[in-house]
């Protein structure tokens, strides 16, 4: 799109194979693929926050971990600052590990309970051989102060901290190596709302101070709206819509984005009595994803064409793409018949129509 992309993800695929052991092969079983990430493309501009949203199981965390090469991709490419991450030499990979960091969702399981906070925060410095012990302690104190903790707490252990404080420790750890890019994988979803606001404000301050680029993975749309510059919406291993945050939230083009926004309960009196259940059924299994558009089993506008053909990304505005035939006025979609579950007027008997597995 524009020139200043720090991270370019192209057709990224991550399949997990089942029935793929030697024993299975001897028995002649066909390996079956779980398509967790199935051809995802987006880029993250330098200095921006890209929000990656979707429901659980849509592959957003797998995408973020695969693009950092924490999981081995089964296809596609990721370029970081112009270099292909999957083709790097080990020296380049070492540098990449310093420049790109991650903050995990669960502040309880992502910190080693047997290490002091100071050791946790500066472990990266030790591994990369960038500082001796005294420098590391000094740097740890500096980082703790920066994320709103006290330098006195450097010798404490993680269990002595609350969830919000632990998440600050995780953020300090990510900052220790002066990265350019941080993946924030649901960094506030385990926190209470009052603490969540503190951490969001901290993340914004740090971005301004250090010129960081964020990939913010979350399922909470109001948090994503607050922190992101651009948003990518994922459904079942695919990105269905990307665009600037205001356009996505005010003028969503993909029916899934529309339904997702519709479901979010707003904290205001006008919300009272509103029905939000516009989408029926559950997310299908990525083991056996639906043909064509993956959303067609739940989409209120689905027609025969959606079942046959995978919609490409249509340009629906400046930097705004949506993978839906409805954005193409000339597509044969408009001539094809509506799918069975899209009934006009009758309404279904119950909430759940589609099945889970």
């Amino acid at each position, binding site marked *: 799109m524009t020139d200043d992309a720090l991270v370019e993800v192209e057709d990224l695929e991550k399949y997990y194979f089942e029935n793929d052991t030697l024993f299975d092969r001897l028995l002649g079983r066909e390996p079956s693929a779980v398509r967790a990430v199935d051809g995802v493309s987006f880029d993250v501009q330098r200095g921006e926050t890209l929000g990656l949203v979707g*429901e*659980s199981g849509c592959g957003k965390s797998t995408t973020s971990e695969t693009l950092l090469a924490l999981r081995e991709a089964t296809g596609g490419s990721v370029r970081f600052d112009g270099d292909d991450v999957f083709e790097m030499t080990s020296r380049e990979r070492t540098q990449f590990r310093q420049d790109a960091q991650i903050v995990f969702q669960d502040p*309880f399981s992502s910190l080693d309970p047997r290490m002091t906070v100071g050791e946790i925060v500066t472990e990266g410095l030790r591994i990369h051989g960038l500082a001796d012990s005294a420098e590391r302690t000094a740097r740890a104190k500096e980082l703790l102060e920066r994320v709103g903790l006290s330098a*006195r707490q450097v010798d404490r252990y993680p269990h*002595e*901290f*609350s*969830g*919000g*404080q*632990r998440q600050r420790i995780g953020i300090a750890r990510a900052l220790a190596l002066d990265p350019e890019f941080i993946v924030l994988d649901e960094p506030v*979803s*385990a*926190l*209470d*709302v*009052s*603490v*969540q*606001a*503190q951490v969001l*404000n901290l993340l914004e301050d740090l971005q301004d101070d250090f010129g960081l680029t964020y990939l913010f993975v979350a399922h909470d749309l*109001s948090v994503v709206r*607050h*922190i992101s510059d651009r948003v990518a919406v994922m459904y079942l291993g695919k990105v269905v819509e990307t665009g600037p*945050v205001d356009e996505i*939230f005010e*003028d*969503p*083009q993909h*029916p899934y984005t*529309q339904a*997702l926004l*519709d*479901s979010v*309960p*707003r*904290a205001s*009196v006008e*919300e*009272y*009595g*509103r*029905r939000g*259940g*516009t*989408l029926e059924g*559950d997310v299908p299994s990525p083991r056996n994803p639906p043909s064509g558009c993956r959303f067609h089993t739940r989409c*209120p*506008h689905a027609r025969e064409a959606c079942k046959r053909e995978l919609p490409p990304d249509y340009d629906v505005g400046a930097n705004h793409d949506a993978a839906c035939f409805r*954005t193409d006025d000339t597509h044969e979609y408009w001539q094809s018949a509506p799918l069975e579950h*899209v009934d*006009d*007027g009758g309404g*279904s*008997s*119950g*909430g*759940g129509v589609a099945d889970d*597995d």
Partner: protein
Amino acid sequence: MSRESPGERDVTPNAGRDSTRERDASPRAHRDTGHERDRLRVENLTTRFFTEEGQVNAVESVSFDVREDEILGIVGESGSGKSVTALSAIDLIESPGRVTDGEVWLREPDLAEEFRERTPDAVDGDFVDLRRLPKGVRRSLRGPKFSMIFQDPMSSFNPSLTVGEQIAEAVEVQRRASANPRSTRSRTQGYGLGKLIVDTLVPGREYTSDASRERAIELLEQVGIPDPVERADEYPHQFSGGMLQRAMVAQALAGEPDVLFADEPTTALDVTIQAQILDLLRDIQRDRGMSVVLITHDLGVIARMCDRVGVMYAGEVVERGSLADVFEQPTHPYTQGLLGSIPDVEDPAPRLQPIEGNVPNLVDSEMPDRCYFADRCPKAMEACLERPAERPVDGDPDHTARCVLADGEYDPATALPDDYFEEDPEATDAPAEGGAADD
């Protein structure tokens, strides 16, 4: 279960966002109806946990009332005592916890008549105090009077029994309870190897009666589970999270309860599934004229569902009132802070206004003898160094706050300095258990 047909919103891609903003009704005013519509009155309920680390004051003198045909919301952060309040009200607190004080008045004219002579203390008009009734009677009310649905459907079902069987069991318990209301024995079936073998050999044997099986299937159908006959014979792991939450609602409805406690019923679910379950809960509540107590940390869920709201902090109800009272005229600074710290999906504020500090832990020895929120409160004054009582906001008995600001003004002259509570840095650095949400 009526729902808008998706086809109606087929006009423009964006129309869905506004056209679905249909409302069932506006928030109903309860002002003039007073107490005659009360179904449950909880007064000064106090629950303590006696742990090795010391006494934990999980629920501190909580009062609220639940009226007929309404949804009462209880909102608070994790560790604020909202779940324990519900469990205390229906007598499900287990050791080391104990309800140490308070009254739970249930409107139950028949029971009131029966106990009026025997235990006059336990009767007040049509109301009986559950805590003063014999244990057996209290237990017999669980099911036909109260029921509860829990946060995590995956861990609330027994993985080794089919979903239908577990709902049928609830049906059977109710059937026996209504046949012999005072007996609490032999309500539940025994499980063991013998039963497993017999069940495997004899088809249909796992159900105690055909009637309970049919009723279970009927309940599954009512909560919107497709193919209920087949699904009844499946195990919990074959259900998705949303479907299993529907099944739990079905189980809770087995006894046709008057009051349903729903403890974070949608927290473990995705937002589109959450919307389905909330719609279902509302439909069931309306159809049956049930009262629902909805416990959640999500202010959006409260706004969508609840007629009246109680806000909990550190084991206390700090503010309660109608939805409009609490959301549009929040009086307690904690309520204000909570509303200010959530990002709005429609209007992104440039900067969030978080509540500074952490949720206190509730160990008795560390609980100060002052307003529990004073150390985080931007409006703390000298008057806050005493424990505030629950008082009406501007004289309105239906809108109360446990705060001196309910009937007073903020006086900057007596404001506490910012570092007033920081004289003991070690204490403020101590871990606060409530830091993380329970999802």
